[in-house]
């Protein structure tokens, strides 16, 4: 991580490029996960509005879906960090 800061302040072009690539990767990853999470909660609101009595059963499934979707960003993050450190 200190490389990120160094790259930004000391003009190391290679590190700067890696930093931009890492940020872009995470940014695009969160774009997809954001859409997915929005979808999950949107559908949840719709289902509860239609059938409020199913709320309890749906909540567990919703959080499961939320965590599975959210994890996608972190795969991107870990992949990015690995590439950043190893390359």
């Amino acid at each position, binding site marked *: 991580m*200190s490389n990120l*800061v160094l790259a930004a302040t000391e003009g190391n072009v290679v590190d700067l490029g890696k930093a931009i690539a890492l940020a872009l990767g995470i940014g695009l990853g969160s774009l997809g996960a954001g859409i997915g999470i929005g979808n999950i909660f949107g559908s949840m609101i719709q289902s509860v509005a239609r059938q409020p009595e199913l709320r309890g059963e749906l909540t*567990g499934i919703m*959080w499961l879906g939320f*965590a599975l979707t959210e*994890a996608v960003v972190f*795969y991107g993050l*870990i992949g990015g960090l690995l590439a950043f450190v190893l390359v």
Partner: protein
Amino acid sequence: MKLLLLNALTLASEAPAGEEPKFDPSHEFELPAWVSIHIGPLDMSINKAVVYLWLGSLLTMAIGILLMRVRLRVTPDRRQTIGEQIYDIAQTQVAEQGLPTKAIGRWFPYVASLMLFIWTINMLGFIPLPITGERFELFGIDLPVWGIYAATSSISVTLALALMTWVFTHIEGVRANGPVGYFKSWIPEVPKAMLPMLVPLEILGQFMRLVSLSVRLFANMLAGHMLILTFIGLIFVLESVFLAVVAVPAATAFYLFEVVIVVSIQAFIFAALSAIYIGSAIEPDH
């Protein structure tokens, strides 16, 4: 409010270490050995993560015994109600969702304690504790540095937990269906020509479960701590006190988000997925 102050205080207490060249958030996740133990090629050294895990297991046992074992009455008091709610979530949301009815008796204790244990370690990670292994001087008194660190933000810990679930999955699968029946259930029902392509994918998928289960928890906790530390760290990296106006509220917001949502969700997810994996190995057709 108290937590907020503590949080700010914890990280601000690193300010006297201004002699260090640069503040680096990833430095918080290094694990120097405190008590070096090497058995052959195995590195069994005691470090920060190990101490947090000890503390976590003790607390988990304490929570379980105090909330669910001691002084139980027909009309529950406040303490017993909390215990019953935790048990209820573990029973209805985790075990019954994933495990087939006949396996609940055997595997409920595992998934329930997994949930409680991971929740406790995650929660410990957001409470400032004086076990960072660093010291600082305040008015000539030698004090330990208070810091936040979660054992689950180390890949070794989460991989060990995931490996347990993974091994149990296959043992249960073989035990319930026999070795032939279980490995046959990996072969999907498609035309024969497709099989050479799909069976390797299926086997790869089994290993991907291991990766996704461990990396999900690890990356969530790592990213959560990193976000908070980076926001506070901006004050020291850019050496401007006025940044605190932005950095402290932002860090507090992320702190609350992690404590309220992420900690519980990740514990729940890990237990629920463990239950689903074990359940799907016992009854492959589902």
